[in-house]
């Protein structure tokens, strides 16, 4: 029977990547000279599992590579080696390499052999730097001994075996009769029992073995095959195996107890072969290779999430309740009478409750703790601080705060950017910190918590704070603000989010890779969230990101424009006001502006944007909804505000095509479809109407 092990690959990868994360965080928590037994054991186990799994599932190169790492860890675990910073660094890079190797194998891409060889040699160098070259020695010993045994000739007629178990043999779970069965598969076996050592019944220990056997095995199997049968008991018995002289046909009949007749088992040969191949690594090697080379069905990689059993259980539970409700309603419906109305209403209420709970629980399945994102930061901080010569203490809190998997995947990069910025520009080098009367070790806090329907992530450092002077100067240089403009510190801080803004004197290779804060803000906005900064010179800065918990559902405000209903994401609404006509200004080229508390916001008529007829035209008959996106405010002119409700977002792109100004669609309670407005998109349309027109013309064409 042959089993295709590739079916276990995806779970192996999933578990190995988790193992690598565990190793990485474990390694990062290790410090020079200290070895915490638990930590090192955990790291070791992860490496060990990867090695074992990789070997089993045919990734011999990964298995080989992990071997060195495992050996190193084993030595640390056994106290044979001290934890040095160097060793930790090498092991970290080995973890990286493993991760790359696995991704490559997973995607059926090429492995960066050069890097693997390099890190591998680093590991070897560490291993051999002590007098631990012994490890390599044993390996070569093993192989050479294997070679010699394989070379042994076995041209004899069979084997004569004296087998005298020690009394405790049965207690190891071994059983002589099973071993004889196994021998019988190698050839014709004759068994002679020697019960001379059997004590008197009253002295007999029922759990001990007093018997011994002489066996004659007619076979062309090698001595190794025979030894292998006794491999597990070689220390629990007296065993001697000698070649059988070629006289087998004479004596066999005289033997008292023929244990088993060979002819009874026709399948002898293949099984014997199997047994031999178990022992010689050479013969299994090609097998492993063939598995490896088989095109590993590229990108069968299905994004999967691991869900806690209790979440699944609660779903099953809810579905059960739903079924009960359904059957209850079914019964009511069968011969409905108006007297049963209260029951019907009860039933419908129950249905509503079930549905809501089911929805909430299903959403919870997609929720993962933010630690998935946070966990990469200890490594990042570790690497960056050593490069920058800074000392930073990273404090993570609220790692268990959950958010939607999709949001999680997209928030990673902006967070990395912000953390890099804090490390690079925010936190000072130790000398500067000491000079400023601060602890030379800077603090970087990453905090997550839930607030309302949002998740809030804060990145705060106790560094120098934003350099307002420099920001302002730069902004003036770039023509983003007028030289004589008098800006409050908050306004100045906001400038860093403007496109084309970067204060770094020199673009360092750590942050400032041409990706500015504007991109960070844009990415966060596209998730329906926002980011803001609070900073105080000399005290530090805090970036606060607010995100919706999920992208699939959001709180929306339903509005009426002409005959259409639209939905505005609640998160972007600041306020809704009745319009006082005298506060409306018309500016050539900029359309209408509305003065709200001395701030002019552009007024956008949705009827114009979407080309609708029959809406409210007179400003005082409608309402103005002030919304914010990309830190710019705009007023949307609508006929009427309807209800607020949670809406399930359906993608327009998947079902139709991308439409500027529309983020998606949803189905309302009465079954009609309503478009969800994309505020950023509307802003762009408003800012560049001509361009928008052009592109839509092209689209239509």
């Amino acid at each position, binding site marked *: 029977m042959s089993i295709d092990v590739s079916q276990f690959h995806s779970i192996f990868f999933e578990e190995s990547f988790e193992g690598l994360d565990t190793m990485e965080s474990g390694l990062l928590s290790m410090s020079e000279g200290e070895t915490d037994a638990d930590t090192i054991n955990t790291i070791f*186990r992860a490496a060990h599992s990867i090695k*074992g799994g990789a070997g089993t599932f045919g990734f011999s190169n990964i298995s080989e590579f992990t071997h060195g790492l495992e050996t190193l860890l084993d030595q640390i675990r056994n106290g044979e080696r001290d934890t040095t910073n160097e060793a930790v660094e090498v092991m970290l890079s080995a973890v990286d390499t493993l991760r790359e190797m696995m991704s490559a194998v997973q995607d059926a891409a090429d492995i960066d052999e050069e890097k693997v060889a390099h890190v591998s040699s680093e590991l070897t160098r560490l291993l051999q730097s002590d007098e631990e070259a012994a490890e390599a020695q044993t390996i070569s010993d093993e192989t050479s001994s294997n070679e010699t045994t394989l070379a042994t000739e076995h041209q004899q007629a069979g084997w004569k075996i004296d087998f005298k178990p020690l009394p405790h043999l049965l207690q190891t779970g071994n059983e002589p009769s099973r071993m004889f069965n196994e021998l019988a598969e190698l050839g014709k076996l004759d068994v002679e029992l020697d019960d001379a050592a059997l004590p008197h019944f009253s002295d007999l220990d029922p759990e001990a073995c007093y018997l011994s056997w002489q066996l004659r095995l007619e076979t062309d199997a090698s001595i190794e095959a025979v030894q292998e049968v006794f491999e597990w008991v070689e220390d*629990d018995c007296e065993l001697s195996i000698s070649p059988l002289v070629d006289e087998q046909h004479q004596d066999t009949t005289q033997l008292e107890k023929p244990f088993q007749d060979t002819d009874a088992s026709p399948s002898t040969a293949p099984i014997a072969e199997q047994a031999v191949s178990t022992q010689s690594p050479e013969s299994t090697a090609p097998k492993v290779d063939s598995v490896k080379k088989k095109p590993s069905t590229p990108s069968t990689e299905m994004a999967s999430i691991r869900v806690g059993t209790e979440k699944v259980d609660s779903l099953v539970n809810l579905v059960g309740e739903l079924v009960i409700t359904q059957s209850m309603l079914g019964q009511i419906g069968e011969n409905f009478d108006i007297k049963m109305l209260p029951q019907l209403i009860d039933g419908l209420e129950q249905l509503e409750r079930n549905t809501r709970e089911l929805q909430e629980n299903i959403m919870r399945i997609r929720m993962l703790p933010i630690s998935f994102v946070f966990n990469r930061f200890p490594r990042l901080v570790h690497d960056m601080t050593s490069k920058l010569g800074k000392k930073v203490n990273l404090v993570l809190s609220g790692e268990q705060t959950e958010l939607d998997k999709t949001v999680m995947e997209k928030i990673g990069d902006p967070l990395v950017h912000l953390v890099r910025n804090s490390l690079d520009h925010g936190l000072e080098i130790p000398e500067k910190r000491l000079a400023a009367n601060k602890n030379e070790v800077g603090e970087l806090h990453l905090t997550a918590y839930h607030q309302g329907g949002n998740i809030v992530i804060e990145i705060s450092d106790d560094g120098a704070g934003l350099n307002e002077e420099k920001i302002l100067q730069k902004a003036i240089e770039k023509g983003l603000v007028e030289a004589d403009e008098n800006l409050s510190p908050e306004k100045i801080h906001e400038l860093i989010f403007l496109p084309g803004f970067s204060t770094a004197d020199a673009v360092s290779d750590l942050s400032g890779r041409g990706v500015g804060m504007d991109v960070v803000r844009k990415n966060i906005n596209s998730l329906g969230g926002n980011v803001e900064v609070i900073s105080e010179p000399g005290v530090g800065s805090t970036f606060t990101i607010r995100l919706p918990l999920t992208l699939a559902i959001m709180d929306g405000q339903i509005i009426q424009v002409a005959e259409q209903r639209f939905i505005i994401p609640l998160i972007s609404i600041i306020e809704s006001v009745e319009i006082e006509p005298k506060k409306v200004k018309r500016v050539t080229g900029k359309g209408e502006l509305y003065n709200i508390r001395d701030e002019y916001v552009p007024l956008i008529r949705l009827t114009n944007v979407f080309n609708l007829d029959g809406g409210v035209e007179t400003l005082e008959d409608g309402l103005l909804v002030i919304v914010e996106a990309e830190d710019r405010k705009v007023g949307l002119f609508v006929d009427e505000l309807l209800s607020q409700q949670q809406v399930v977002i359906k993608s327009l792109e998947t079902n139709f095509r991308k439409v500027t100004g529309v983020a998606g669609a949803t189905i309302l309670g009465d079954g009609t479809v309503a478009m969800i407005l994309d505020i950023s998109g509307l802003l762009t349309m408003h800012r560049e109407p001509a361009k928008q027109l052009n592109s839509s013309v092209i689209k239509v064409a």
Partner: protein
Amino acid sequence: MANILAVDDSASMRQMVEFTLKGAGHTVTSANDGQQALDIAKTKSFDLVITDVNMPNKDGLSLTRDLRQLSAFKFTPILVLTTEAGPEKKQEGRAAGATGWLIKPFNPDQLLATVKKVLG
């Protein structure tokens, strides 16, 4: 067919062992670590135990030692999955009361061959 208890902290190995043994008609109960396995073993008996060595909570060797203390497991074959082929590791396994071992990496066929060896 046999009733087998398979213990491994690695989900992929557990799946592979379970799938292979079930495919050969055995009944398989899985455990994530030694402690869980021991708890299961206290409630029912098995014809064979296959256990990994390196596991959290309770490793395979100490599981083997504890199982041998249970009367239902006194003679039960216990196979240890190990990556270490060195003689001292084998000795450790034997001292703990293991019947035999299966050296990782192994493929499903080797697993079945070894299982056959102890189930007779």
